[in-house]
């Protein structure tokens, strides 16, 4: 079904047209929670790109070679969650062992990726769009890249507006949402720019 879609259009689709944060609203908790400074936004995005790509690989193999032959498709939700939780644990072990400084700067955000709907969303969208192995991996990676771009833009903007004199009721989250609304206006228009 999705065999004729080129890898380039899947890539553009993941990064811009179906951008996870601004168009599909996946992973908003980290979007409003971690974008207060650029450094943690960048660390979080790196971890999400890695987990998303790996989860696409593992979940594709699990779905195609275990769940479909055994006719256990209704278990996909439960098994994908377990896969993602295990991957996050693995990433946590590796980072703690080899890069202790990065581990400390990421802090709580690393385990929180398990409940980040962006990762589970990417995996489920892969299954729903019936992507092949390569297509799933490209989509997982590009979705993570789109996430990173928006996280970096948002944290850059929020760092600059913290000292702005906004009405007290607008401080914090409401202000962040209005900024996101303007960013989303730009992303909505990619629908027309890049025909699929």
């Amino acid at each position, binding site marked *: 079904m999705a065999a004729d879609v080129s890898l380039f259009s899947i890539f553009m689709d993941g990064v811009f047209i179906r951008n996870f944060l*601004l*168009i*599909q*609203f*996946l*992973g*908003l*908790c980290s979007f*409003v929670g971690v974008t207060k400074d650029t450094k943690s936004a960048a660390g979080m995005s790196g971890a999400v790109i890695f987990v998303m790509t790996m989860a696409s690989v593992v979940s594709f193999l699990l779905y195609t070679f275990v769940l479909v032959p055994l006719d256990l498709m*209704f*278990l996909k*939700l*439960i098994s994908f*969650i377990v896969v993602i*939780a295990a991957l996050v644990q693995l990433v946590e072990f590796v980072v703690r062992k080899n890069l202790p400084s990065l581990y400390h700067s990421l802090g709580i955000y690393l385990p929180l990726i398990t*409940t*980040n*709907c962006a990762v*589970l*969303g990417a995996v*489920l*969208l892969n299954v*729903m769009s019936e992507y092949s192995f390569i297509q799933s991996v490209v989509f997982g990676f590009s979705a993570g890249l789109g996430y990173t771009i928006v996280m970096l833009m948002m944290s850059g903007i929020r760092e600059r507006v913290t000292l702005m004199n906004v*009405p*007290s*009721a*607008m*401080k914090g*989250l*409401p*202000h*962040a*949402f*209005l900024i*996101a*609304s*303007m960013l*989303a*206006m730009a*992303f*909505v228009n990619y629908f027309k720019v890049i025909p699929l």
Partner: protein
Amino acid sequence: MSNVFNEYMRGITKDNPIFGLVLGLCPTLAVTTSVENAIGMSAGTAFVLICSNIMVSALRKQIPASVRLPIFILIIATFVSIVEMVMEAYTPALYNALGVFIPLIVVNCIIIGRAEAYANRNGVFDSFIDALGVSSGFLLVLVLIGGIREMFGTGQIEVFGHLLFTIPMMNPATYMILSPGAFLTIGTLMAIVNYRRAKKLERGE
């Protein structure tokens, strides 16, 4: 009796999932393109929340503290799978409109948040009332946001085939049912809630 009622109202006012606890933002913004989708989504979430709260509080003495989160997630994922299959079979149009957000109820922070913060410490009946209150708060907010976006985005509100009202507009602002409108609506509503809270504090209530 008034105690039970207060417990119920707490989920709508003070512990309102969206404006009080700021949890579960993804479905709130993604599915509120119309009132109909908002109702469908909150019905699904309410079913999962009530069932998982009852289940968790009934099993809270048996669940070991160290592995409680994976167990909560498994309990929730089971009920979400039920909702997904029932919706696919009986309301296919709604199922297609909500798409990936039905399976994503499983990572909705509201549900695991209530399981961890409330159901794990309280009895079955209290947890049921808590789940009922929180789901009602969720429903109200979703319908409010969906109503605002549908009204300005399409110029009319239509619920399950009944046209509630139309507003005479030359060009409906399609912008409102696209993603920027969602951010704009929730940002504005949150600012209004903050403003009212600040006013209340000033009056010393």
